[in-house]
């Protein structure tokens, strides 16, 4: 793809505002005692509204915590009134009004602007515990069912959820997601979840660069307060991950992505995008209004899940002509390139060759997201992929680039409870590759090779998470 440097500068400026800065862990607790913040390693705690005893918030504040109240948007006025009296730092607002996240944020934004002393987060619904899933679901009555038709290891991840939320509401409130712990398979009398489950959740939020709310089970909260050694052993297994997460960069970072996803309804296309995330396709999602020349200049492939106006279609035609791949999903529109015969026509896809690139039109929605994501990965190929992993079916990778430099940081999360040998390929040339992890303080140099414009290296035993810093001495060559 032809690259235009001044457009890149425009691009950096245009999307910096929508990139989250923090990936904080908020601990949702019962409105009851908690050990002090310097013991738990947590700074932000969440209490559910309504509060039976507002003094709990003040007590937690005195223990070193920043206290957030989680409430529904309809209760906001009452909560704000309490906040002023109870040493509350901010609100996490759930949208219970039957409207999209985008419209809810739009509606509430003036309200938030009027209370600048408080910090607000908009809760993204639909989060799930990040974990490696099996095929079996064991229900309470002992009946067993298969949960997934795929024999690939299935990862539950919140990456797509957050990416979509960020694209739906780019200029409004900071978002936060949460989930509930999966308690199936928990043995009686055992702490559940275990430390590894917390660690994966913390690591995932770090990799997504989004705030997350994690539930602290009441039994564990009570045991920690009581000084139960087993509870503290578990918690001390979690603290290195909290500490590691807290040391991530806080500068505004741009996601490394070679694939653009254009979407106007996150729900309709969610599963396809979820599987794209699952297959480590480095993507960004934008609304149709976000399709600009500047944006397209950083991608080499685009998937379109929604109707576009003529200007956007023209931009995509030019994008394809200069070597890009464009896939229209569930489209029956007439396009200018239909005047020429297609390169290939099948019941499930029609392919047009346009200049140096191609347009693929699918007449139906994605019915098999797993196959769609895998086909997409094949179509894009390694040569066009900004990031790729080998033999790492349980690891997800995200990449970010600093605004003013070409340095790249990769965030890796291994969802399996087994160390993984991860082979990584990153597009671009770098002078140095450095690794840090909870087990390996920053940083150790990682041997790497350059091959065909890519930097390749191996992380021998990725346990749960690591960050890899790729430092560029030749800034102009380290492009996605």
């Amino acid at each position: 793809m032809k690259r235009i440097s001044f457009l890149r500068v425009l691009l950096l400026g245009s999307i910096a505002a929508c990139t989250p800065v923090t990936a904080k862990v908020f601990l949702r607790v019962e409105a009851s005692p908690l050990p002090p913040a310097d013991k738990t390693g947590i700074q932000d705690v969440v209490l559910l509204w309504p509060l039976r005893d507002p003094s709990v918030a003040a007590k937690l504040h005195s223990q070193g915590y920043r206290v957030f109240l989680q409430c529904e948007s309809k209760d906001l006025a009452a909560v704000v009134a309490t906040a002023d009296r109870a040493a509350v730092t901010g609100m996490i607002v759930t949208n219970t009004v039957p409207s999209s996240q985008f419209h809810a944020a739009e509606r509430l934004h003036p309200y938030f602007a009027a209370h600048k002393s408080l910090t607000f987060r908009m809760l993204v619904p639909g989060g799930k515990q990040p974990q490696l899933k099996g095929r079996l679901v064991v229900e309470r009555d002992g009946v067993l069912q298969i949960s997934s038709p795929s024999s690939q290891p299935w990862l539950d991840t919140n990456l797509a959820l957050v990416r979509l939320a960020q694209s739906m509401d780019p200029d409004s409130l900071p978002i936060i997601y949460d989930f509930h712990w999966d308690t199936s398979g928990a043995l009686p009398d055992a702490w559940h979840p275990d430390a590894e489950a917390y660690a994966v959740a913390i690591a995932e939020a770090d990799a997504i660069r989004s705030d997350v709310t994690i539930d602290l089970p009441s039994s564990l909260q009570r045991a920690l307060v009581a000084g139960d050694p087993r509870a503290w052993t578990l918690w001390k297994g979690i603290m290195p991950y909290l500490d590691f997460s807290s040391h991530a960069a806080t500068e505004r970072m741009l996601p490394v992505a070679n694939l653009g996803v254009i979407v106007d309804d996150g729900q309709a296309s969610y599963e396809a995008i979820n599987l794209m995330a699952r297959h480590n396709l480095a993507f960004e999602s934008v609304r149709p209004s976000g399709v600009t020349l500047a944006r397209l200049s950083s991608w080499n492939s685009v998937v379109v899940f929604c109707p576009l106006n003529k200007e956007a279609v023209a931009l995509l035609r030019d994008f394809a002509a200069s070597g890009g791949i464009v896939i229209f999903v569930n489209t029956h529109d007439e396009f200018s390139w239909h005047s020429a015969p297609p390169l290939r026509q099948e019941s499930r896809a029609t392919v047009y060759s346009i200049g140096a690139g191609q347009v693929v039109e699918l007449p139906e929605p994605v019915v098999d997201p797993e196959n769609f994501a895998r086909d997409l990965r094949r179509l894009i190929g390694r040569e066009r992929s900004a990031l790729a992993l080998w033999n790492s079916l349980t690891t997800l990778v995200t990449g970010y680039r600093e605004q003013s430099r070409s340095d790249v940081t990769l965030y890796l999360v291994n969802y399996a409870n087994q160390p993984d040998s991860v082979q990584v390929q990153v597009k671009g040339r770098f002078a140095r590759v450095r690794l840090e992890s909870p087990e390996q303080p920053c940083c150790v140099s990682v041997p790497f090779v350059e091959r065909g414009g890519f930097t390749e290296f191996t992380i021998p035993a990725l346990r749960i998470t690591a960050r890899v810093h790729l430092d560029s001495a030749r800034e102009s060559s380290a492009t996605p």
Partner: protein
Amino acid sequence: MRWLKSAALPSLTLAMLPLPAILCSPQNSSFVHQKRYAMGTVFEIVIYDEDLPRADAAARAALDEVVRLDGMMSNYKPESDLSRMNRTAHFQPVRIPREIYEVIEESLYYSRHSDGQFDISVGPLVDLWKAALAGGPLPTAADQASARRCVGYQKIELTPPDRIQFHSDCMRLDLGAIGKGYAVDRTAEILNASGIHRAYIDAGGSTIYALGAPPGGTAWRVRLRDPSRKLGPEVMLRNNSVSTSEQSAPSSLQGDAPGHIIVPGTGKPLQTRYAISVAAPSATASDALSTTLLLLGPTKGAALVKTLHNVSAMWIDSDGQRTIVGDGVSFFLTGENRPIQVSPPKNRIAATSKAANELLP
């Protein structure tokens, strides 16, 4: 071991569904459910037992064994015993662990009975096409010819009790089409030895072994892969196994994306419209036979099944056409609401593995 079969198969839908009349919904039953990632897939064990700590420990021990076998039989871990063997067994005998010896011995049995359609030396060809599967260029004829030179089970020589030699300078073995089954059998053995008698062992959905029956039931009901979505095939398992195999689905975005199962004879990806399910007394047998019989197809495959004892096989294509043979457990087509009866043929040989080589022609 890349365990490519399990890693790349798209949708081997093996579903275990409630069947109240048979399972009697085990209310209040206590169970343990554990999973572990190994061999490129997720191994899961469900155990019903009154002694939960015992069940928990047994499941943990069994999954530890799967991880140990993965470390031994992996061909992408350079330090594994299999990788070491693949580096050193050319033109001189080398000692290998008992487990690898057993798996190779059983593999050769299926190679001979399938005229080489099942072949654990096909790795160089698989790797060649794997790049194309990932979006790379299709291999040239010269590439294919070069890789085919390294393939051929006849060039593997086993010397009891623990030695192997390759009569080829470029041969290397990949146990991905049988190793998962072997690991499932080892898992069942460990559970049995721990006093567990009601367990369901699932290796990524493509190979399943049922130990005993769930509480209140006579067998574990398993829903099988059906590309036609018309037949609703199921099988009842009790102390036996079922495996399913299917070629990768064609790409919706690219016309020439190859599948992941390679025909050793031609060196090219298998073209078939079938999915196959094979029930056998052991998971090693069902795993190996599912690949073998998919490669053979229903006509030649049925002839092979008819020589085996306690094996059933079912081929189903996307139109719902099916071929069902064998004297093992019956398959049920719930879409047609009737069981498939198979009459037992004569003159069979055992499909179980332990004495496999003694039965070779």
